[in-house]
Protein backbone atom coordinates (compact mmCIF):
# COMPACT_ATOMS: atom_id res chain seq x y z
CA UNK A 1 0.00 0.00 0.00
CA UNK A 2 1.13 3.51 -0.75
CA UNK A 3 2.31 5.37 2.32
CA UNK A 4 1.41 8.98 2.71
CA UNK A 5 3.80 11.64 3.79
CA UNK A 6 1.86 13.57 6.37
CA UNK A 7 2.87 17.18 6.18
CA UNK A 8 1.71 19.44 8.98
CA UNK A 9 -0.58 21.95 7.38
CA UNK A 10 -1.86 25.35 8.29
CA UNK A 11 -5.12 25.56 10.13
CA UNK A 12 -6.18 29.10 10.89
CA UNK A 13 -2.59 30.22 10.27
CA UNK A 14 -1.06 27.99 12.93
CA UNK A 15 1.02 24.97 12.09
CA UNK A 16 -0.56 21.86 13.61
CA UNK A 17 0.46 18.25 13.36
CA UNK A 18 -1.90 15.31 13.39
CA UNK A 19 -2.19 13.25 16.56
CA UNK A 20 0.66 10.78 17.03
CA UNK A 21 -0.05 7.03 17.31
CA UNK A 22 0.79 7.28 20.99
CA UNK A 23 -1.67 10.11 21.53
CA UNK A 24 -4.40 8.23 19.68
CA UNK A 25 -3.72 5.18 21.85
CA UNK A 26 -4.18 7.23 24.99
CA UNK A 27 -7.37 8.82 23.60
CA UNK A 28 -8.73 5.36 22.77
CA UNK A 29 -8.29 4.33 26.37
CA UNK A 30 -10.88 6.98 27.27
CA UNK A 31 -13.51 5.30 25.06
CA UNK A 32 -14.38 1.88 26.52
CA UNK A 33 -16.70 0.97 23.64
CA UNK A 34 -13.70 0.85 21.31
CA UNK A 35 -12.44 -2.19 23.22
CA UNK A 36 -15.44 -4.29 22.17
CA UNK A 37 -15.09 -7.40 20.05
CA UNK A 38 -17.42 -7.90 17.11
CA UNK A 39 -17.72 -11.30 15.45
CA UNK A 40 -14.60 -12.39 17.27
CA UNK A 41 -12.56 -9.45 16.02
CA UNK A 42 -11.56 -6.24 17.73
CA UNK A 43 -14.01 -3.51 16.78
CA UNK A 44 -12.83 -1.00 14.21
CA UNK A 45 -15.48 1.67 14.58
CA UNK A 46 -15.68 3.68 11.37
CA UNK A 47 -19.21 5.01 11.78
CA UNK A 48 -18.63 8.11 13.87
CA UNK A 49 -20.31 10.20 11.18
CA UNK A 50 -23.57 8.55 12.22
CA UNK A 51 -22.93 8.62 15.94
CA UNK A 52 -19.71 8.92 17.94
CA UNK A 53 -18.60 6.82 20.87
CA UNK A 54 -18.48 8.60 24.24
CA UNK A 55 -15.50 9.12 26.51
CA UNK A 56 -15.63 8.18 30.18
CA UNK A 57 -15.44 11.87 31.06
CA UNK A 58 -18.86 12.35 29.47
CA UNK A 59 -20.41 9.29 31.10
CA UNK A 60 -18.95 10.35 34.45
CA UNK A 61 -20.22 13.91 34.14
CA UNK A 62 -23.74 12.72 33.42
CA UNK A 63 -23.67 10.22 36.28
CA UNK A 64 -22.18 12.76 38.65
CA UNK A 65 -24.91 15.24 37.83
CA UNK A 66 -27.62 12.61 38.31
CA UNK A 67 -26.11 11.44 41.60
CA UNK A 68 -25.81 14.88 43.15
CA UNK A 69 -27.80 17.60 41.42
CA UNK A 70 -30.69 16.13 39.48
CA UNK A 71 -33.79 18.34 39.37
CA UNK A 72 -35.97 20.21 36.91
CA UNK A 73 -34.49 23.54 35.90
CA UNK A 74 -35.80 27.12 35.99
CA UNK A 75 -38.48 26.26 38.54
CA UNK A 76 -38.61 25.32 42.19
CA UNK A 77 -36.76 26.94 45.05
CA UNK A 78 -34.95 23.96 46.51
CA UNK A 79 -31.21 23.44 46.51
CA UNK A 80 -31.08 20.73 43.86
CA UNK A 81 -33.20 22.86 41.53
CA UNK A 82 -30.69 25.67 41.93
CA UNK A 83 -27.73 23.36 41.35
CA UNK A 84 -29.37 21.83 38.28
CA UNK A 85 -30.23 25.23 36.84
CA UNK A 86 -26.67 26.38 37.37
CA UNK A 87 -25.23 23.26 35.73
CA UNK A 88 -27.65 23.59 32.84
CA UNK A 89 -26.76 27.23 32.20
CA UNK A 90 -23.02 26.57 32.70
CA UNK A 91 -23.30 23.90 30.04
CA UNK A 92 -24.92 26.42 27.71
CA UNK A 93 -22.07 28.84 28.32
CA UNK A 94 -19.49 26.12 27.59
CA UNK A 95 -21.15 25.20 24.31
CA UNK A 96 -21.60 28.87 23.39
CA UNK A 97 -17.90 29.45 23.94
CA UNK A 98 -17.10 26.40 21.83
CA UNK A 99 -18.69 28.04 18.77
CA UNK A 100 -17.76 31.64 19.52
CA UNK A 101 -21.28 32.66 20.53
CA UNK A 102 -22.89 34.11 23.63
CA UNK A 103 -25.12 31.91 25.84
CA UNK A 104 -28.34 33.69 24.83
CA UNK A 105 -27.65 32.56 21.26
CA UNK A 106 -27.64 28.86 22.15
CA UNK A 107 -30.93 26.95 22.24
CA UNK A 108 -31.02 23.35 23.46
CA UNK A 109 -32.90 21.05 21.12
CA UNK A 110 -33.16 17.30 20.98
CA UNK A 111 -30.83 17.01 17.96
CA UNK A 112 -29.89 18.88 14.80
CA UNK A 113 -33.03 17.73 13.00
CA UNK A 114 -35.09 19.27 15.77
CA UNK A 115 -33.05 22.49 15.58
CA UNK A 116 -33.61 22.82 11.83
CA UNK A 117 -37.33 22.17 12.29
CA UNK A 118 -37.40 24.84 14.98
CA UNK A 119 -36.23 27.42 12.43
CA UNK A 120 -38.44 26.14 9.60
CA UNK A 121 -41.61 25.98 11.73
CA UNK A 122 -40.79 29.27 13.44
CA UNK A 123 -40.70 30.82 9.97
CA UNK A 124 -43.92 29.05 9.02
CA UNK A 125 -45.55 30.57 12.11
CA UNK A 126 -44.16 33.99 11.20
CA UNK A 127 -45.62 33.51 7.72
CA UNK A 128 -49.00 33.02 9.37
CA UNK A 129 -48.62 36.34 11.17
CA UNK A 130 -47.38 35.05 14.52
CA UNK A 131 -44.67 37.03 16.29
CA UNK A 132 -45.95 40.46 15.33
CA UNK A 133 -44.02 43.05 13.34
CA UNK A 134 -40.62 41.83 14.63
CA UNK A 135 -41.20 38.45 13.00
CA UNK A 136 -42.12 39.86 9.62
CA UNK A 137 -38.53 39.41 8.45
CA UNK A 138 -39.15 35.64 8.64
CA UNK A 139 -42.46 35.64 6.79
CA UNK A 140 -42.42 33.90 3.42
CA UNK A 141 -44.98 33.90 0.66
CA UNK A 142 -45.31 33.15 -3.03
CA UNK A 143 -42.49 34.72 -5.00
CA UNK A 144 -40.01 34.13 -2.21
CA UNK A 145 -37.30 31.55 -2.66
CA UNK A 146 -35.58 29.13 -0.30
CA UNK A 147 -32.27 27.77 -1.56
CA UNK A 148 -30.63 24.50 -0.50
CA UNK A 149 -28.17 22.20 -2.26
CA UNK A 150 -28.66 18.84 -3.91
CA UNK A 151 -26.21 17.33 -1.42
CA UNK A 152 -28.23 17.99 1.73
CA UNK A 153 -29.05 15.49 4.44
CA UNK A 154 -32.81 14.89 4.53
CA UNK A 155 -32.89 16.74 7.87
CA UNK A 156 -31.77 19.91 6.10
CA UNK A 157 -34.01 19.30 3.13
CA UNK A 158 -37.45 18.04 4.13
CA UNK A 159 -38.15 20.85 6.67
CA UNK A 160 -37.53 23.40 3.89
CA UNK A 161 -39.75 21.49 1.49
CA UNK A 162 -42.47 21.65 4.12
CA UNK A 163 -41.85 25.34 4.77
CA UNK A 164 -42.13 26.03 1.04
CA UNK A 165 -45.31 23.96 0.84
CA UNK A 166 -47.09 25.78 3.66
CA UNK A 167 -45.99 29.29 2.67
CA UNK A 168 -46.14 29.13 -1.13
CA UNK A 169 -42.45 29.98 -1.40
CA UNK A 170 -40.46 28.03 -3.95
CA UNK A 171 -37.61 25.71 -3.07
CA UNK A 172 -34.61 25.89 -5.36
CA UNK A 173 -31.39 23.97 -5.14
CA UNK A 174 -27.75 24.31 -6.08
CA UNK A 175 -27.02 21.32 -8.31
CA UNK A 176 -23.93 19.28 -7.49
CA UNK A 177 -21.19 18.34 -9.94
CA UNK A 178 -20.29 14.80 -10.93
CA UNK A 179 -18.18 14.34 -7.79
CA UNK A 180 -21.01 15.49 -5.53
CA UNK A 181 -19.44 18.85 -4.70
CA UNK A 182 -20.59 22.37 -5.52
CA UNK A 183 -18.93 25.78 -5.54
CA UNK A 184 -19.78 29.36 -4.61
CA UNK A 185 -20.19 30.06 -8.34
CA UNK A 186 -22.75 27.29 -8.58
CA UNK A 187 -24.62 28.85 -5.65
CA UNK A 188 -24.34 32.36 -7.14
CA UNK A 189 -26.16 31.05 -10.23
CA UNK A 190 -29.15 30.05 -8.09
CA UNK A 191 -29.32 32.85 -5.50
CA UNK A 192 -31.43 35.80 -6.66
CA UNK A 193 -32.95 38.97 -5.24
CA UNK A 194 -35.90 36.80 -4.23
CA UNK A 195 -33.83 34.42 -2.13
CA UNK A 196 -34.87 34.76 1.50
CA UNK A 197 -32.95 31.88 3.00
CA UNK A 198 -30.13 29.53 2.08
CA UNK A 199 -29.49 26.34 4.04
CA UNK A 200 -26.53 24.03 3.47
CA UNK A 201 -24.19 21.63 5.22
CA UNK A 202 -20.83 22.99 6.34
CA UNK A 203 -19.40 19.51 5.76
CA UNK A 204 -21.26 16.95 3.68
CA UNK A 205 -21.98 13.69 5.48
CA UNK A 206 -21.58 11.82 2.17
CA UNK A 207 -18.72 13.49 0.30
CA UNK A 208 -16.76 15.05 3.17
CA UNK A 209 -16.74 18.24 1.11
CA UNK A 210 -16.17 21.42 3.09
CA UNK A 211 -18.49 24.17 1.82
CA UNK A 212 -17.16 27.70 1.12
CA UNK A 213 -19.20 29.17 3.99
CA UNK A 214 -17.87 32.75 3.89
CA UNK A 215 -18.49 33.07 0.14
CA UNK A 216 -22.06 31.83 0.54
CA UNK A 217 -22.69 34.12 3.50
CA UNK A 218 -21.51 37.08 1.40
CA UNK A 219 -23.78 36.09 -1.51
CA UNK A 220 -26.76 35.54 0.78
CA UNK A 221 -26.39 38.69 2.83
CA UNK A 222 -25.94 40.76 -0.33
CA UNK A 223 -29.55 39.92 -1.22
CA UNK A 224 -30.79 40.04 2.38
CA UNK A 225 -31.18 36.28 2.72
CA UNK A 226 -30.68 34.37 5.96
CA UNK A 227 -28.03 31.66 6.18
CA UNK A 228 -28.74 28.39 8.00
CA UNK A 229 -25.67 26.23 8.46
CA UNK A 230 -25.98 22.50 9.10
CA UNK A 231 -22.90 22.06 11.28
CA UNK A 232 -23.54 18.40 12.18
CA UNK A 233 -20.38 17.16 10.51
CA UNK A 234 -18.23 20.19 11.28
CA UNK A 235 -18.83 21.16 14.92
CA UNK A 236 -17.55 17.80 16.24
CA UNK A 237 -14.47 17.78 14.04
CA UNK A 238 -13.03 21.22 13.41
CA UNK A 239 -12.68 24.61 15.04
CA UNK A 240 -15.88 26.51 14.48
CA UNK A 241 -16.62 30.15 15.14
CA UNK A 242 -20.19 30.79 14.06
CA UNK A 243 -20.00 34.51 14.81
CA UNK A 244 -16.87 34.93 12.68
CA UNK A 245 -18.50 32.91 9.92
CA UNK A 246 -21.43 35.34 10.25
CA UNK A 247 -24.10 32.69 9.66
CA UNK A 248 -27.57 33.49 11.00
CA UNK A 249 -28.50 30.06 12.32
CA UNK A 250 -26.60 26.82 12.79
CA UNK A 251 -27.50 23.34 14.03
CA UNK A 252 -25.56 20.39 15.41
CA UNK A 253 -26.11 17.23 17.45
CA UNK A 254 -24.54 16.14 20.73
CA UNK A 255 -24.36 12.46 19.87
CA UNK A 256 -21.98 13.07 16.96
CA UNK A 257 -19.40 14.74 19.22
CA UNK A 258 -19.05 12.32 22.09
CA UNK A 259 -22.11 13.65 23.90
CA UNK A 260 -25.41 11.97 24.67
CA UNK A 261 -28.42 11.30 22.52
CA UNK A 262 -31.39 13.58 22.96
CA UNK A 263 -29.44 16.83 23.03
CA UNK A 264 -28.69 19.14 20.12
CA UNK A 265 -27.96 22.78 19.58
CA UNK A 266 -29.49 25.59 17.62
CA UNK A 267 -27.33 28.68 17.31
CA UNK A 268 -29.12 31.85 16.27
CA UNK A 269 -27.92 35.45 16.11
CA UNK A 270 -29.34 37.15 19.22
CA UNK A 271 -31.57 39.64 17.39
CA UNK A 272 -32.97 36.90 15.19
CA UNK A 273 -33.72 34.48 18.01
CA UNK A 274 -35.54 37.20 19.91
CA UNK A 275 -37.79 37.83 16.91
CA UNK A 276 -38.45 34.28 15.71
CA UNK A 277 -41.83 32.90 16.85
CA UNK A 278 -41.57 29.71 18.89
CA UNK A 279 -42.19 26.35 17.27
CA UNK A 280 -43.14 24.42 20.42
CA UNK A 281 -45.15 26.09 23.14
CA UNK A 282 -46.18 25.17 26.66
CA UNK A 283 -44.57 25.15 30.07
CA UNK A 284 -41.27 26.91 30.83
CA UNK A 285 -41.31 29.16 27.78
CA UNK A 286 -43.99 31.66 28.80
CA UNK A 287 -44.04 34.94 30.66
CA UNK A 288 -47.74 35.49 31.41
CA UNK A 289 -50.56 33.09 30.56
CA UNK A 290 -54.21 34.07 30.71
CA UNK A 291 -57.21 32.30 29.27
CA UNK A 292 -57.11 34.83 26.43
CA UNK A 293 -53.51 34.47 25.40
CA UNK A 294 -49.87 34.25 26.42
CA UNK A 295 -46.62 36.05 25.92
CA UNK A 296 -43.26 34.40 25.78
CA UNK A 297 -39.90 34.62 27.48
CA UNK A 298 -36.96 35.96 25.52
CA UNK A 299 -34.63 33.56 23.70
CA UNK A 300 -33.33 31.00 24.43
CA UNK A 301 -36.04 30.02 26.96
CA UNK A 302 -38.85 30.74 24.56
CA UNK A 303 -37.70 27.79 22.45
CA UNK A 304 -37.27 25.39 25.36
CA UNK A 305 -40.81 24.34 26.17
CA UNK A 306 -41.33 21.50 28.59
CA UNK A 307 -39.02 19.75 31.03
CA UNK A 308 -35.52 19.90 29.61
CA UNK A 309 -32.80 17.28 28.99
CA UNK A 310 -30.57 18.60 31.75
CA UNK A 311 -28.17 15.71 32.33
CA UNK A 312 -27.70 15.50 28.56
CA UNK A 313 -26.77 19.19 28.39
CA UNK A 314 -24.32 18.76 31.25
CA UNK A 315 -22.77 15.75 29.53
CA UNK A 316 -22.55 17.56 26.21
CA UNK A 317 -20.56 20.32 27.90
CA UNK A 318 -18.21 17.61 29.20
CA UNK A 319 -17.82 16.32 25.64
CA UNK A 320 -16.95 19.84 24.49
CA UNK A 321 -14.32 20.15 27.20
CA UNK A 322 -12.91 16.78 26.23
CA UNK A 323 -12.60 17.80 22.57
CA UNK A 324 -11.00 21.09 23.55
CA UNK A 325 -8.48 19.32 25.75
CA UNK A 326 -7.28 17.45 22.67
CA UNK A 327 -7.56 20.48 20.41
CA UNK A 328 -10.00 20.88 17.53
CA UNK A 329 -7.26 21.86 15.09
CA UNK A 330 -5.36 18.70 15.83
CA UNK A 331 -8.49 16.57 15.57
CA UNK A 332 -9.17 18.17 12.19
CA UNK A 333 -5.60 17.45 11.02
CA UNK A 334 -5.75 13.87 12.32
CA UNK A 335 -8.97 13.17 10.46
CA UNK A 336 -7.77 14.78 7.26
CA UNK A 337 -4.66 12.57 7.39
CA UNK A 338 -6.84 9.48 7.94
CA UNK A 339 -9.12 10.46 5.06
CA UNK A 340 -6.11 10.85 2.77
CA UNK A 341 -4.84 7.45 3.92
CA UNK A 342 -8.23 5.93 3.10
CA UNK A 343 -8.30 7.62 -0.30
CA UNK A 344 -4.78 6.47 -1.19
CA UNK A 345 -5.56 2.93 -0.06
CA UNK A 346 -8.90 2.77 -1.88
CA UNK A 347 -7.24 4.05 -5.08
CA UNK A 348 -5.07 0.91 -5.06
CA UNK A 349 -8.07 -1.45 -4.90
CA UNK A 350 -9.62 -2.39 -8.25
CA UNK A 351 -13.31 -1.60 -8.72
CA UNK A 352 -13.66 1.10 -6.08
CA UNK A 353 -15.31 4.39 -7.00
CA UNK A 354 -14.91 7.10 -4.42
CA UNK A 355 -17.49 9.88 -4.12
CA UNK A 356 -16.41 13.43 -3.32
CA UNK A 357 -13.34 15.62 -3.68
CA UNK A 358 -10.19 14.12 -5.22
CA UNK A 359 -7.35 12.83 -3.07
CA UNK A 360 -5.16 15.64 -1.80
CA UNK A 361 -8.05 18.10 -1.41
CA UNK A 362 -8.75 18.90 2.24
CA UNK A 363 -11.82 17.05 3.36
CA UNK A 364 -13.49 15.83 6.47
CA UNK A 365 -12.49 12.43 7.83
CA UNK A 366 -15.05 10.44 5.92
CA UNK A 367 -15.04 8.63 2.59
CA UNK A 368 -18.05 7.20 0.75
CA UNK A 369 -17.54 4.81 -2.11
CA UNK A 370 -19.12 2.28 -4.42
CA UNK A 371 -17.70 -1.20 -4.77
CA UNK A 372 -18.53 -1.87 -8.40
CA UNK A 373 -20.70 -4.95 -8.74
CA UNK A 374 -21.33 -5.41 -5.01
CA UNK A 375 -24.24 -3.76 -3.24
CA UNK A 376 -23.30 -1.55 -0.28
CA UNK A 377 -25.37 -3.68 2.06
CA UNK A 378 -23.24 -6.71 1.18
CA UNK A 379 -20.06 -4.66 1.55
CA UNK A 380 -21.13 -3.59 5.04
CA UNK A 381 -22.02 -7.15 5.99
CA UNK A 382 -18.63 -8.40 4.84
CA UNK A 383 -16.77 -5.69 6.75
CA UNK A 384 -18.86 -6.41 9.85
CA UNK A 385 -17.70 -10.02 9.74
CA UNK A 386 -14.19 -8.60 10.06
CA UNK A 387 -15.14 -6.43 13.03
CA UNK A 388 -15.32 -3.25 10.96
CA UNK A 389 -18.33 -0.98 11.45
CA UNK A 390 -19.23 1.24 8.50
CA UNK A 391 -22.43 2.88 7.31
CA UNK A 392 -24.19 1.63 4.19
CA UNK A 393 -27.12 3.03 2.28
CA UNK A 394 -28.07 6.48 1.08
CA UNK A 395 -26.93 8.16 4.35
CA UNK A 396 -30.15 10.22 4.42
CA UNK A 397 -29.16 11.88 1.15
CA UNK A 398 -31.31 10.25 -1.52
CA UNK A 399 -31.24 13.15 -4.02
CA UNK A 400 -27.44 13.23 -3.92
CA UNK A 401 -27.17 9.50 -4.52
CA UNK A 402 -29.73 9.70 -7.31
CA UNK A 403 -27.70 12.48 -8.93
CA UNK A 404 -24.51 10.38 -8.66
CA UNK A 405 -26.32 7.43 -10.26
CA UNK A 406 -25.94 5.29 -7.14
CA UNK A 407 -28.64 3.74 -4.97
CA UNK A 408 -26.33 3.24 -2.02
CA UNK A 409 -22.74 3.70 -0.96
CA UNK A 410 -20.49 2.51 1.83
CA UNK A 411 -19.14 5.20 4.16
CA UNK A 412 -16.18 4.99 6.49
CA UNK A 413 -15.97 7.91 8.90
CA UNK A 414 -13.25 8.68 11.40
CA UNK A 415 -12.98 10.57 14.64
CA UNK A 416 -10.26 11.62 17.03
CA UNK A 417 -9.99 8.05 18.36
CA UNK A 418 -9.67 6.41 14.95
CA UNK A 419 -6.27 4.79 14.50
CA UNK A 420 -4.24 4.15 11.38
CA UNK A 421 -4.64 0.48 12.27
CA UNK A 422 -8.45 0.85 12.00
CA UNK A 423 -7.98 2.37 8.55
CA UNK A 424 -5.49 -0.27 7.41
CA UNK A 425 -7.75 -3.12 8.55
CA UNK A 426 -10.63 -1.45 6.75
CA UNK A 427 -8.60 -1.16 3.53
CA UNK A 428 -7.45 -4.78 3.72
CA UNK A 429 -11.05 -5.94 4.17
CA UNK A 430 -12.38 -3.77 1.33
CA UNK A 431 -9.78 -5.35 -0.96
CA UNK A 432 -11.31 -8.76 -0.17
CA UNK A 433 -14.91 -7.81 -0.98
CA UNK A 434 -15.03 -8.22 -4.76
CA UNK A 435 -13.12 -11.50 -4.75
CA UNK A 436 -15.45 -12.82 -2.02
CA UNK A 437 -18.56 -12.00 -4.03
CA UNK A 438 -16.96 -13.32 -7.20
CA UNK A 439 -17.05 -10.02 -9.04
CA UNK A 440 -14.22 -9.67 -11.49
CA UNK A 441 -12.91 -6.75 -13.44
Amino acid at each position, binding site marked *: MRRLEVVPSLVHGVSVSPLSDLEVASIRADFPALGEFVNGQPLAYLDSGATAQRPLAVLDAERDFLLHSNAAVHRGAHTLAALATEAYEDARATVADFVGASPAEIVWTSNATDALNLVAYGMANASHGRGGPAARRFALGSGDEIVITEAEHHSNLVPWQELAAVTGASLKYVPVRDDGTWTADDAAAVITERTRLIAFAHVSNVTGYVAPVSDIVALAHAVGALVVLDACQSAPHRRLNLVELDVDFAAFSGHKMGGPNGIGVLYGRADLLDALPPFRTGGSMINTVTMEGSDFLPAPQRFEAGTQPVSQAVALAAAVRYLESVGLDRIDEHENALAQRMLAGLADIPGIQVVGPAAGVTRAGLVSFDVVGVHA*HDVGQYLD*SRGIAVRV*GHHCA*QPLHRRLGLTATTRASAYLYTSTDDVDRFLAAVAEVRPY*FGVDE
Partner: protein
Amino acid sequence: MSDALAGLYQEVILDHSKRRIGFGELDHFDAMHFERNPTCGDEITLQLALEPGTDRISALGWRGAGCSISMASASVLAEMAPGMTIAELQSTIAEFREMLRSRGAGEPDIDILGDAVAFHGVSKFVMRVKCAMLAWVATEACIAETSSRQTS
Protein backbone atom coordinates in the same frame (compact mmCIF):
# COMPACT_ATOMS: atom_id res chain seq x y z
CA MET B 1 -13.62 -16.41 7.09
CA SER B 2 -16.37 -16.32 9.64
CA ASP B 3 -18.79 -19.27 9.50
CA ALA B 4 -21.73 -16.96 10.07
CA LEU B 5 -20.88 -15.08 6.92
CA ALA B 6 -20.59 -18.30 4.94
CA GLY B 7 -23.99 -19.29 6.36
CA LEU B 8 -25.45 -16.05 5.05
CA TYR B 9 -23.83 -16.02 1.65
CA GLN B 10 -24.48 -19.61 0.54
CA GLU B 11 -23.21 -20.55 -2.92
CA VAL B 12 -26.82 -20.85 -4.08
CA ILE B 13 -27.44 -17.25 -3.04
CA LEU B 14 -24.32 -15.79 -4.61
CA ASP B 15 -25.06 -17.78 -7.74
CA HIS B 16 -28.70 -16.63 -7.99
CA SER B 17 -27.73 -13.02 -7.25
CA LYS B 18 -25.80 -13.09 -10.50
CA ARG B 19 -28.10 -15.30 -12.61
CA ARG B 20 -31.21 -13.31 -11.72
CA ILE B 21 -33.79 -15.75 -13.08
CA GLY B 22 -36.93 -13.95 -14.20
CA PHE B 23 -35.20 -10.59 -14.52
CA GLY B 24 -37.05 -8.52 -17.11
CA GLU B 25 -40.61 -7.68 -18.02
CA LEU B 26 -43.31 -10.13 -19.00
CA ASP B 27 -45.18 -9.57 -22.28
CA HIS B 28 -48.41 -10.20 -20.51
CA PHE B 29 -49.15 -10.31 -16.80
CA ASP B 30 -52.13 -10.37 -14.44
CA ALA B 31 -50.76 -8.30 -11.58
CA MET B 32 -47.85 -6.00 -10.91
CA HIS B 33 -46.51 -4.56 -7.69
CA PHE B 34 -43.69 -2.21 -6.66
CA GLU B 35 -42.13 -2.82 -3.26
CA ARG B 36 -39.43 -0.82 -1.54
CA ASN B 37 -37.43 -1.34 1.61
CA PRO B 38 -37.10 2.21 2.93
CA THR B 39 -34.29 1.39 5.35
CA CYS B 40 -31.84 0.26 2.68
CA GLY B 41 -33.43 1.51 -0.54
CA ASP B 42 -33.75 -1.91 -2.17
CA GLU B 43 -36.63 -2.02 -4.61
CA ILE B 44 -38.40 -4.41 -6.88
CA THR B 45 -41.17 -4.28 -9.46
CA LEU B 46 -42.69 -7.71 -9.77
CA GLN B 47 -45.14 -9.07 -12.34
CA LEU B 48 -47.19 -12.20 -11.96
CA ALA B 49 -48.83 -14.07 -14.85
CA LEU B 50 -51.38 -16.88 -14.60
CA GLU B 51 -52.10 -19.59 -17.14
CA PRO B 52 -55.22 -18.24 -18.86
CA GLY B 53 -58.44 -19.20 -17.10
CA THR B 54 -56.66 -20.97 -14.21
CA ASP B 55 -55.12 -20.05 -10.87
CA ARG B 56 -51.80 -21.59 -11.86
CA ILE B 57 -48.73 -19.35 -12.06
CA SER B 58 -47.21 -19.28 -15.53
CA ALA B 59 -44.39 -16.80 -14.86
CA LEU B 60 -42.89 -14.26 -12.51
CA GLY B 61 -40.94 -11.36 -13.97
CA TRP B 62 -39.12 -8.71 -12.01
CA ARG B 63 -36.86 -5.73 -12.17
CA GLY B 64 -35.10 -4.21 -9.24
CA ALA B 65 -31.98 -3.04 -7.55
CA GLY B 66 -30.63 -4.15 -4.25
CA CYS B 67 -28.26 -6.32 -2.31
CA SER B 68 -27.32 -9.88 -3.23
CA ILE B 69 -29.81 -11.29 -0.74
CA SER B 70 -32.81 -9.44 -2.17
CA MET B 71 -31.82 -10.12 -5.77
CA ALA B 72 -31.10 -13.80 -5.14
CA SER B 73 -34.37 -14.35 -3.31
CA ALA B 74 -36.29 -12.83 -6.24
CA SER B 75 -34.41 -15.13 -8.59
CA VAL B 76 -35.11 -18.24 -6.52
CA LEU B 77 -38.79 -17.36 -6.28
CA ALA B 78 -39.06 -16.72 -10.02
CA GLU B 79 -37.58 -20.15 -10.62
CA MET B 80 -39.86 -21.93 -8.13
CA ALA B 81 -43.22 -20.27 -8.69
CA PRO B 82 -44.20 -21.26 -12.25
CA GLY B 83 -46.46 -24.33 -12.17
CA MET B 84 -47.71 -23.70 -8.64
CA THR B 85 -51.29 -22.80 -7.92
CA ILE B 86 -51.90 -19.59 -6.05
CA ALA B 87 -52.70 -21.58 -2.92
CA GLU B 88 -49.45 -23.54 -3.22
CA LEU B 89 -47.47 -20.36 -3.74
CA GLN B 90 -49.12 -18.77 -0.71
CA SER B 91 -48.21 -21.65 1.54
CA THR B 92 -44.65 -21.65 0.19
CA ILE B 93 -44.39 -17.95 1.02
CA ALA B 94 -45.75 -18.62 4.52
CA GLU B 95 -43.17 -21.37 5.02
CA PHE B 96 -40.38 -19.08 3.75
CA ARG B 97 -41.46 -16.31 6.11
CA GLU B 98 -41.54 -18.70 9.04
CA MET B 99 -38.01 -19.88 8.23
CA LEU B 100 -36.75 -16.29 8.09
CA ARG B 101 -38.30 -15.54 11.46
CA SER B 102 -36.68 -18.55 13.08
CA ARG B 103 -33.44 -16.77 14.06
CA GLY B 104 -31.53 -19.83 12.93
CA ALA B 105 -33.66 -22.37 14.83
CA GLY B 106 -35.16 -25.51 13.34
CA GLU B 107 -34.64 -27.23 10.02
CA PRO B 108 -36.40 -25.79 6.98
CA ASP B 109 -38.50 -28.17 4.90
CA ILE B 110 -36.53 -28.72 1.71
CA ASP B 111 -39.50 -30.48 0.06
CA ILE B 112 -41.52 -27.29 0.28
CA LEU B 113 -38.80 -24.70 -0.06
CA GLY B 114 -36.32 -26.30 -2.46
CA ASP B 115 -33.44 -23.95 -3.23
CA ALA B 116 -35.00 -21.33 -0.93
CA VAL B 117 -33.69 -23.26 2.10
CA ALA B 118 -30.40 -21.53 1.33
CA PHE B 119 -31.88 -18.45 2.99
CA HIS B 120 -32.10 -20.19 6.36
CA GLY B 121 -28.80 -18.52 7.33
CA VAL B 122 -30.33 -15.10 6.70
CA SER B 123 -32.63 -15.64 9.68
CA LYS B 124 -29.66 -15.12 12.00
CA PHE B 125 -29.11 -11.65 10.54
CA VAL B 126 -32.22 -9.83 11.68
CA MET B 127 -31.40 -6.74 9.63
CA ARG B 128 -31.30 -8.79 6.41
CA VAL B 129 -34.63 -10.59 6.77
CA LYS B 130 -36.44 -7.77 4.99
CA CYS B 131 -33.99 -8.08 2.09
CA ALA B 132 -34.84 -11.74 1.67
CA MET B 133 -38.59 -11.07 1.93
CA LEU B 134 -38.72 -8.22 -0.61
CA ALA B 135 -39.77 -10.18 -3.72
CA TRP B 136 -41.97 -12.50 -1.68
CA VAL B 137 -43.91 -9.61 -0.17
CA ALA B 138 -44.31 -8.11 -3.64
CA THR B 139 -45.66 -11.47 -4.84
CA GLU B 140 -48.20 -11.54 -2.02
CA ALA B 141 -49.39 -8.10 -3.12
CA CYS B 142 -49.75 -9.39 -6.69
CA ILE B 143 -51.76 -12.37 -5.45
CA ALA B 144 -54.03 -10.05 -3.49
CA GLU B 145 -54.50 -7.99 -6.64
CA THR B 146 -55.51 -10.98 -8.76
CA SER B 147 -57.89 -12.37 -6.16
CA SER B 148 -59.54 -9.01 -5.50
CA ARG B 149 -60.12 -8.75 -9.23
CA GLN B 150 -61.65 -12.22 -9.34
CA THR B 151 -64.04 -11.51 -6.49
CA SER B 152 -65.06 -8.08 -7.73
